[in-house]
């Protein structure tokens, strides 16, 4: 869920810009490493530039994804006891979610957006906060109702 949320929240332009910058750094670093090697100081600089390039290229796909997955696993292990089940309802006009301490009844127009990803359905109440439903607990019919609600 956290990985899907992460891919939803990060703008595509950020990923593209970082990848392009990383590729430029790798290309410049490699070209300089091959052609300009006057002293050890320069060689270290070019190697650092290449490493930075690789870091930038792989940041969103591997490094950040790994940290997100680890943080999510740690969060789940730490808070497992506190995670309570919620009752979720979709009516024609409202989305309702409730547990012992929280009840929310949102009319359609109060929902910012609904994103149906591979494994999770995200219901955003604003640009940042959301509720999620794992797709594995939904039947085809229920998923269809959510799609119609969108």
């Amino acid at each position, binding site marked *: 869920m956290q990985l899907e949320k992460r891919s939803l929240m990060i703008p595509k332009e950020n990923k593209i810009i970082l990848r392009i910058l990383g590729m430029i750094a790798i290309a410049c670093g490699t070209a300089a490493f091959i052609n300009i090697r006057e002293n050890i100081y320069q060689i270290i600089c070019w190697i650092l530039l290449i490493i930075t390039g690789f870091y930038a290229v792989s940041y969103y796909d591997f490094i950040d994804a790994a940290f997100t997955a680890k943080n999510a696993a740690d969060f789940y292990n730490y808070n497992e006891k506190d995670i309570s089940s919620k009752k979720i309802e979709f009516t024609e006009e409202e989305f309702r979610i409730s547990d012992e301490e929280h*009840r*929310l009844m949102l009319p359609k127009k109060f929902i910012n957006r609904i994103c149906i990803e591979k494994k999770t359905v995200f219901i955003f109440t604003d640009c940042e906060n959301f509720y999620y439903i794992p797709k594995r607990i939904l039947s085809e019919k229920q998923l269809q109702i959510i799609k119609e609600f969108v």
Partner: protein
Amino acid sequence: MNETVMRFKNKLKIREYAAGYQLYDLRHGKSKGRVWKSSVFFFIAMAMLFILMMTGFNAAGYPVVTLMLMVCMYMCSYYVYMLPAIAKLKGEHIYKSSRLLSKEYFFEIKKDCFIMKNEHEYLKKYYSGLTDCIETDDIFMLAGGIDNTIIVISKRCLSGEENSELSAFFKREMVKQYRRARGRKKGKKT
């Protein structure tokens, strides 16, 4: 017996929610640890400046040192000035994108928990589940719980007596979580 201490209505303005979100971000968000992070960059920048000084400020002759100096200066200002401003902007953006935050809430402050409700939402939070209670000149910011809910109470909607009563109550009930943020400088308006 869990008796009610206070009851009041509260309606947030955009700047109040933004201020609350900024406080939360400083404690738990991207701005967390900004002081030591900016200090690290500041010291690297000073070291680079020292190297440049030793070379008689020959910036063209030492491009990497000059570049590192500029990057570190930028990162320093990013952590000190830009990140809090970005957090405030994000808070405003969240407020604008939510139809729920601008609604009026009815608060019921009890001995061990508080309830906030309106026609769309009912939320009960125990003080023991909160990680932060920060008071500023304009707001109370309560945060915590598994979903990291940020609750902002505007002082504007309360009378002076209610404000001091609520402040004293939070101070007494949330000894670990309560903090009084520094006030604004005299004459500075937000």
